[in-house]
């Protein structure tokens, strides 16, 4: 089954780290991706730019509204995701617990609706 691991992180946190800590953090994510791949669980992943770069679009009453900024204004924002393919929820939770984001943010485990 496929699961989307949604990484909710405090956006201010990253800039407060020293360059060494940032490097160590990036390396931890890299290793995590490697482990997912070796285990055959990796489908896809991306790191997202800060939510200040977001734009929201909606159409209401026939009018298109385009706004700057993220949809939900909160300290914690989606900072990235991993799409994984694992046998079941237990296994997805185990992978979520290994994600570096689990120790500095929250990892949401969301099952993918399989269209087939």
């Amino acid at each position, binding site marked *: 089954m496929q699961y989307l691991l949604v990484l909710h992180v405090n956006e201010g946190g990253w800039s407060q780290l020293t360059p060494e800590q940032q490097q*160590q953090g990036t*390396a*931890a994510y890299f290793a995590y991706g*490697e*482990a997912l791949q070796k285990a055959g669980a990796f489908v896809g992943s991306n790191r997202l730019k800060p939510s200040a770069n977001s734009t929201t679009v909606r159409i209401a009453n026939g009018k298109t509204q385009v706004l700057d900024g993220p949809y939900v204004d909160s300290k914690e924002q989606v900072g990235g995701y991993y799409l994984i393919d694992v046998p079941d*929820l237990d296994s997805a939770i185990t992978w979520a617990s290994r994600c570096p984001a689990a*120790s500095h943010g929250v990892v949401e485990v969301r099952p993918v609706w399989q269209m087939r």
Partner: protein
Amino acid sequence: MSIPEGDEARRTADAVARRSYGKLVAFLAARTRDVAAAEDALAEAFASALVDWPANGCPKNPEGWLLTVARRKLIDSVRRRQTGETASTQLQILAEGLEDAAAQAERDMQIPDKRLALLFACAHPAIEAGIRAPLMLQVVLGLDGETIASAFLVSPAAMRKRLSRAKEKIQQAGIPFSIPEHEELPQRLDTVLDAIYAAFAEGWTDATGTDTIRRNLTGEALFLARLVVELLPQEAEALGLLALMLHAEARRAARRNVAGEYVPLAEQDPASWNSQMIDEAESVLYRASALGTIGRYQLEAALQSAHVHRRRTGHNNWADVVRFYDALAALTDSPVVAINRALAIAELHGPQAAVDAIKAIAADDRLTEYQPYWAARAELLSKTGAYDEAHQAYEMAIGLEREPTVRAFLQKRQAALPR
């Protein structure tokens, strides 16, 4: 200053829950085998106590009070749920068994201890192996589903479902609440001990000790092991398990330095170990060895003991350690044992011999996601000078680690590899 009655009632209720929860559940469910109903009735009894005790004072025999109320609630719920013949049979069982026993229990101010039978029911071979430890923690110790789910890395909804399915199985399949007969006992006891050790291991993975749920789990597992040892004092493996867990627990604090960084066993200061626990572990293991039956847990405890001895005396005993691992490998087909054996071989015959030993098990599929395998492999390869391979192995170990301080430790080791 007088203590408000409500506080005292809550404190008494908490103390009773801690001391006697499993005893009360075991007693209430022994006849009907309906663990879930017994737990519900007991929960209602605790709720009544928190209303009644502050107003009327705490009873002299709180267990007896709870038992009487829970028994009444249990009978009420059977009446409500069922009608006709099944209900009258159930009620008859309840009335006959419980009332006599409860009356006696209240008279003697002592409830017969059927917790061991309850443990054997929870760890019955007919119950799925993975749910045995959670089931024990809930039924015997009263831990709630969410706490257990977090500890075992499972969703709370799934954990609740699995627990209730297991309880239903106990009732529907007629799993006995009894202590197995002599010839059956060792094998059945193994499943009980395995489940206790599984609970301990889940608690042990939190190296920081800041996660209270996990830390408590090691305490709960020790409580269960002590309970089994108290009720079956002649079982060497139960003593072995208790000794093993005490040895591990004695080193909990030493896994962190003052800066909060992870410290591996080989670099820990023996002075920071809990010597009282080690002494207890040693004397428990001595008791086990006097019983003359060897087993997995005694061997593992002996290994812990050997490590402690070496670190404290500086006396090198790697040959003993490798011998213990050989015996253990013959008993279990565990890749974990194979990894630890390889690490001991490295000390005795050098890193290349250990790398050869570990490569022999590399084909085992179970190891791809097993973090300690990659960490051990990385460590050994770096000692033989195979730095590229070591780098890759560290990468896997880092990617699979969930504890941030251990992850940082491994990253430091990886960065220190010569390029």
